[in-house]
């Protein structure tokens, strides 16, 4: 006799998915539609007068040098953060994978920074590099290198990249370590017996097997650098000096909440929304299907 569980209740399934749907509607669909609506309006801060301007806000954005520069800065920033965070994490993961004694202690210590709130991490880095009281800035001065990120754009960008990447290393480390531990020992042992050096074993056996993890982390890291680094920029440079660290997501906040230009800010957030949607599509449609062995 076949035993089958059949739910005859017509309402229950809807009730069960309702919380998820309500949350998505309230916290994503509704604000996103508001942003879309705002992006075609020109409005004063108080909402006393609003005019429909079509795509004028978008046109203004793409003819604004500050915005174009911000795109450039964001690109450099995101790729640098992803590259630094991933390469360092991979190196640490490979090393931690080989550690035999006190492995848990190492792992715990490396994962720790992830528990630090972005703003707290940023303030920490800010104090290390503060041109007046920072210990790193102090030693750099002794070495004859003048550190003043409040004035020098390159230094400021470097500092926010380091501060943003630092925390992400822990996250990447977890994934890389899990990926490494999923690789069967026999593969590596077979390669070793064939006489492959440790370097060769890594690049020809381990790294290709890690590629799904690598591609997943590339997308996650870029999304992180694009959207979650607001706190770092806000606490360290506020987009300065001379727009050198003014990344897109900070500019949305700056134009919307400080300059009270709601239309332009909304249009910018719509552009960011398109970027994140396309990154997700790439992640699911392209990378997840192409990467296999």
């Amino acid at each position, binding site marked *: 006799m076949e035993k089958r569980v059949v739910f005859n209740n017509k309402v229950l399934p809807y009730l069960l998915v309702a919380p998820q749907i309500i949350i998505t509607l309230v916290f994503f669909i509704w604000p996103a539609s508001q942003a879309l609506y705002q992006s075609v309006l*020109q409005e*004063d*801060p*108080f*909402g*006393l*007068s609003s005019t429909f301007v079509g795509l004028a806000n978008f046109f203004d954005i793409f003819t604004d040098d500050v915005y174009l520069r911000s795109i450039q800065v964001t690109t450099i920033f995101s790729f640098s953060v992803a590259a630094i965070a991933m390469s360092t994490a991979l190196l640490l993961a490979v090393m931690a994978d080989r550690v035999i004694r006190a492995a848990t202690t190492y792992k715990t210590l490396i994962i720790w920074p992830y528990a630090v709130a972005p703003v707290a991490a940023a303030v920490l880095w800010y104090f290390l590099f*503060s*041109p*007046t*009281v920072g210990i790193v800035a102090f030693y750099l001065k002794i070495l004859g290198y003048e550190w*003043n990120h*409040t*004035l*020098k*754009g390159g230094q400021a960008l470097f500092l926010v990249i380091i501060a943003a990447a630092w925390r992400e290393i822990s996250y990447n480390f977890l994934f890389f370590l899990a990926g490494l531990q999923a690789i069967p020992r026999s593969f590596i042992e077979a390669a070793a017996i064939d006489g492959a050096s440790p370097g060769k074993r890594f690049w020809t056996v381990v790294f290709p097997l890690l590629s799904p993890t690598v591609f997943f982390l590339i997308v996650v890291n870029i999304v992180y650098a694009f959207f979650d680094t607001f706190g770092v920029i806000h606490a360290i440079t*506020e987009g*300065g*000096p*001379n*727009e050198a660290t003014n990344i897109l997501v900070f500019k949305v906040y*700056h134009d919307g*909440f*400080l*300059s*009270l*230009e709601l239309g332009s800010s909304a249009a910018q957030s719509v552009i960011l929304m398109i970027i994140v949607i396309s990154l997700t599509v790439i992640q699911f449609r392209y990378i997840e299907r192409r990467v296999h062995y």
Partner: protein
Amino acid sequence: MKTFRLLLFVAVFILGVAITSAQAVMDIQWWHAHGGGLGEKVNAIAAGFNKSQSMYKVVATYKGNYHDTMTAGIAAFRSKNPPHILQVFEVGTATMMAAKAAIKPVYEVMGESGLPFDPKAYLPTVTGYYTTPDGRMLSMPFNSSTPVLYYNVEAFRKAGLDPNKPPKTWPEVAEYCRKLVKSGYPAGFSTSWISWIHIENFSAWHNVPIGTKANGFGGLDTEFTYNSPLHVKHIQQLADWQKEKIFIYGGRRNLGNAKFYSGEVAMYTESSAGYAGCKKTCKFPFRTSMLPYWPDAPGAPQNTIIGGASLWVMAGHSPEEYRGVATFFSYLSSPAVQADWHQFTGYLPITTDAYHLTKGQGFYEKNPGMETALKQMTLNKPTENSKGLRFGNFVQVRDINYNELEAIFVGKKNAKKGLGDAVAAGNKLLRKFERANR
């Protein structure tokens, strides 16, 4: 029967609440931007008012920094639940003025309340910023300050300089700084709030316009003029002085404070309201003197202008509530409250009575640094160029100035090009504001 009893109980309870709330004092919401020690002082003022009468209760709420507070107020207005009183920083003045349906001008609030209100009792250099050209007060000045020169007495002595003779002019500043650097100080002077001090106040102090149409008071079709030869000369000089370590840029807002507190620089131009913080942190004796000026500029020294914030009354409340606001403003303007606020914080008193009261108490003899700001503000009768400024989108203009000044100081542009670019970008924002508020 049981249900009936319960219902009866609930009904009585609701009735009771309704009666008590009808008898209760009326709440006046006051959103402000003062944290820490200043926040406690604000709470003390509210508590003092609440004790002084039994009709109204002012509830002071800290809403974050100036930007946060203004944004919170605007968001509250948009969701139709604004506070009664909103503290807005001086550069937000034009935005608030333009939002006529969102605010209720202070002269109206005071006039309708029937309480005694004399606009002449207030210091003109303070209220000028918040008054229409025909003299009607739009918002109530609350915390106002003006930039002065702070100097490290110990450093002066070490470098063989007389602390009783602070530099009066910029060439003297350079000369003093050279001596300070020679005596072992890493750099001569730095500044906070560079746009406010070295562009806006610099203009007023030298009696040159920041923009046309009487610095924007005369109409929305104003244009910036702070790329005049005098401005270019000053900013270029600051940039050039970096080589000799006479000047060093300290960062945006008042991030440079650490440079003065830690003794990296021996002179510092900063808001008079920074006095309390400096006194708390600095481990050396310091004094203040008036801002330096260029002796070859014909109009200098004129008088400086204020920064800080004022209290705006938001639209959409009942006449009784506005009466409460007016009562509170009268209390706030009283000499005793004002003098106490001034002496505690270093902000300027807003009425002449409060100034005289403080003077009469012998306060300035004990704290000579505290009078510098007032002397400087009232040095001359304000002109068109030194009454204040009223430009739309000025929050963004300050950001543009930070960016361009940083480009100048790092050597990417010269002062002429940088200030020219700043003025051009600023004028674009002025036109945008004009279009939006025609």
